[in-house]
């Protein structure tokens, strides 16, 4: 008994010393690196004109802790911050999340906001995993703590234009002219540069761009823009949009009785979002987006879809597939790296992210592996057409749910 008591006392003394050491070292952050929980700062534009897309991304973040706990046994604490669709707010919120102890940052859907967060992350030495943002410069700055599991604007355009060629072949159509309309923000400009660079090389595409019209991302009225586009008499609209402007544009086209062969996005948000269908109803039909998309047959997709429906019983993953999917995968990358690193130390975590090789994934394309710039290569796109008021994969043929419809019914040459 006394022996047992002695052992207990010695154990108690050791515990006391350990606790004292912990208390002494904690303020210096020495023990922080051995935290059992990964704190993920999720930065998304949940209000402002990108609010709906930010909320759509948030759905992917919200389900991540539960799914990842079951998959990897890793505990995740989300620290959510709203960037208010504002670059400066994104920057200050990133600073604050780091001050509040975020081990890794995820976000922020938009290129401008993501670039601002990336700067903060790099300066503070905290890993930042970009969920969605295409501006190439984000991973071209030589940053050591910035990673992106999303296509660059160049990749999106290349894949998107290639799918447009496939679309014309699949529908036996030969449009000769297009009017290129794009939102005038960081993403839109990057896409415009991408199209300018790739179009001359893609000689198999039968059309030329007869006019380029850029517009304010916060535009309240696109009547002038649509009048100009209509006057170009182009066969179809090549559109790089966001959500609200895509709605405005489609509505204005109907008002101005303009029925081109189609509205085709070479890779931008807007036309596959739930709100697009809700607001426009039948007018949303036949619009086409060539975008990175999820693989409906993947095991992980099924798991995520189950968790999604549990949290959002009245919703469908198909309307949030891209946003929720890439946001979920960004958190998955963080969790997977944390599991391997067994540490929340920023440098160790960043090194582990660099070694990522996730083969069981949700989005189309090859495994999640970062190159020396922190960029994942080989992410696939699909040609997604709005049919029966839902996004439907129509190309590539291997993943198609049905055949594409082009030109749109009601097409009248201008």
């Amino acid at each position, binding site marked *: 008994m006394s022996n047992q008591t002695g052992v207990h006392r010695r154990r108690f003394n050791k515990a006391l010393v350990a606790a004292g050491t912990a208390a002494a070292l904690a303020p210096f952050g020495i023990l922080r690196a051995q935290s059992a929980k990964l704190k993920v700062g999720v930065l998304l534009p949940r209000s402002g004109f990108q609010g709906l897309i930010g909320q759509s991304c948030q759905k992917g973040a919200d389900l991540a802790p539960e799914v990842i706990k079951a998959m990897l046994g890793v505990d995740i604490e989300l620290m959510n911050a709203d960037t208010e669709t504002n670059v400066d707010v994104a920057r200050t919120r990133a600073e604050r999340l780091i001050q509040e102890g975020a081990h890794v940052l995820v976000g922020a859907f938009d290129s401008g906001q993501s670039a601002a967060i990336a700067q903060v992350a790099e300066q503070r030495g905290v890993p930042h995993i970009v969920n969605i943002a295409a501006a190439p410069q984000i991973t071209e700055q030589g940053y050591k703590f910035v990673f992106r599991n999303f296509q660059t604007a160049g990749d999106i355009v290349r894949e998107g234009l290639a799918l447009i060629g496939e679309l014309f072949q699949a529908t036996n159509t030969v449009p000769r002219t297009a009017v290129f309309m794009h939102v005038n923000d960081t993403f839109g400009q990057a896409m415009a540069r991408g199209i300018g660079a790739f179009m001359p090389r893609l000689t198999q595409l039968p059309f030329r761009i007869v006019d380029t019209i850029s517009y304010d991302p916060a535009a*309240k009225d696109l009547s002038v823009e649509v*009048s100009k586009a209509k006057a170009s008499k182009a066969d179809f609209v090549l559109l790089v949009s966001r959500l609200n402007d895509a709605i405005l544009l489609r509505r204005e086209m*109907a008002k101005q009785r303009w029925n081109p062969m189609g509205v085709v996005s070479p890779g931008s948000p807007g036309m596959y979002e739930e709100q697009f269908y809700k607001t426009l109803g039948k007018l949303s039909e036949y619009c086409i987006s060539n975008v990175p998309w999820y693989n409906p047959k993947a095991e992980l997709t099924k798991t995520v879809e189950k968790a999604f429906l549990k949290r959002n019983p009245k919703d469908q993953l198909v309307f949030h597939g891209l946003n929720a999917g890439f946001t979920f995968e960004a958190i998955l990358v963080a969790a997977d790296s944390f599991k391997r690193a067994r540490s929340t130390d920023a440098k160790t975590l960043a090194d582990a992210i660099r070694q990522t090789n996730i083969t069981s994934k949700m989005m189309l394309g090859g495994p999640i592996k970062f190159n020396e710039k922190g960029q994942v290569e080989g992410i696939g796109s699909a040609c997604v057409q709005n049919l029966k008021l839902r996004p439907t994969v129509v190309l590539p043929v291997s993943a198609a749910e049905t055949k594409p419809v082009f030109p749109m019914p009601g097409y009248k040459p201008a």
Partner: protein
Amino acid sequence: MSWDLVANVVVAGVLTGLVYGLMALGLSVIFGVVRVVNFAHGEMMTIAMYSAVLIFGSLKLDPFLVLLPVAAAFFVFGYVLQTGLINPFITRPEHTQFMLLIALAIIMTNALLMLFGPEARSVQVDYQLESFELGGVLLDKVRLYAASVAVVAAASLFAFFRFTLTGKSIRACADNHLGARVVGLNVKRLYGLTFGLGAACVAVAGCAMVLLVDVTPSLGPYYTLLAFVIVIVGGLGSMTGALLGGVLIGVSEALAGLLIAPSAKSMFSFGLLILVLLLRPQGLLGKRS
């Protein structure tokens, strides 16, 4: 560039500009009489837009049909706001008035955010996507109706100020505050009525605007700024100036979009503002102080 393209763009600019003008008219009336700059103007219009959305959502009533009840409710709101909250600030330094109205604007925006969330809301009427064709010019039905409403509302307001005793009393207050008090006019009550009328104008503009633009809580500051640009261009305190300013901004933005670049539209209206401030600081139809 074809003439019908230019005509279409100019007509759309005029029609939108008239609705802008009605919105700015409320700001101009309030400033012209009460001498208070309403920094919550755009936010009040946003509330009017949400009111139309709510009524349409619950009763399926066209925003044009609920103009009068919404305007009446806003008249009461404006009257109470002026008599209950703003009147005590009339004699205080201007910066306290500014802060009061900015605080009010922030409270309104955040209240809307709490009530409706950040997502855009809209009203979809049956004729939303229809248009009339006149020669080569397409007249968007909604825009045409909204502009007509703006013209009728502005004309009614002009008539009220010109032909009614209360209207004349309010003008007397605006022209000579001390004189109005000397002849026994109840200035504070008249201020309340004026603010109420300004708010009613905003309500009518909001009900018309909700058919043109999707509403979000963050829309308020944009419209406040736009209303300021319009009244400064037209002449602060001038009712005709507000309408003219609205049309000028609407048309110049449309033409800038067509002739220069669509993304340069707002840049052009602010350029116009600077030009007016330099060449005619009192605004196009404003009186030199």
